[in-house]
């Protein structure tokens, strides 16, 4: 079956611009996670949705970052006033529920802020 998909696969933007990254989870998965991975590092948690609501957004680095999941399926990660330090791979994962279920990852969006 179809896995987690993310678009775009690559995004190049200029410092100060606004970007949106999209995640389409595995069909039927109620839990959705966003992580950020810098070069040579493991993924770092950003936010977790259970259904439509953000159950845990404590990993968002500052108020320039925001994510939504209005219908409990597709999610969008939004970054305002991008900075060069935001350059990273943004990974999305989904699972059947919010407990110890396996999180399945998408291919990521590579964001480069010039």
């Amino acid at each position, binding site marked *: 079956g179809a896995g987690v998909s993310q678009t775009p696969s690559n995004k190049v933007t200029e410092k100060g611009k606004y970007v949106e990254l999209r995640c389409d989870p595995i069909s039927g998965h109620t839990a959705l996670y966003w992580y950020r991975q810098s070069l040579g590092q493991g993924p770092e948690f950003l936010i977790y949705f259970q259904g439509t609501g953000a159950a845990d957004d404590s990993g968002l680095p500052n108020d320039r970052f925001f994510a939504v999941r209005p219908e409990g399926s597709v999610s969008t990660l939004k970054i305002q006033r991008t900075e060069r330090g935001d350059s990273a791979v943004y990974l999305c994962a989904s699972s059947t529920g919010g407990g110890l279920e*396996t999180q399945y990852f998408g291919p990521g969006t590579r964001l480069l802020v010039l």
Partner: protein
Amino acid sequence: EDQVTQSPEALRLQEGESSSLNCSYTVSGLRGLFWYRQDPGKGPEFLFTLYSAGEEKEKERLKATLTKKESFLHITAPKPEDSATYLCAVQVERNNRLAFGKGNQVVVIP
């Protein structure tokens, strides 16, 4: 604070040369430990979940084990296609996030 440390950071193996990767963790209330494989330019691919000390799981040339302080990923008679970064992550009882280590980068030389 939950800590996950993986060693060695990088490892070069000859094809057929078995080895082990280490993941040590310091957490409060471990719910599960996960191993993922990540190829360059790709997202992490799930390998194993271990829940309690003493548990072992196997898949082809890979075997994962868990103690109260660490996990090992044993690679038996590796092939070049086993070249990847192997990521260890923990999930604790108080939240659902995964906390990852930096990974073990493995290169298997033919």
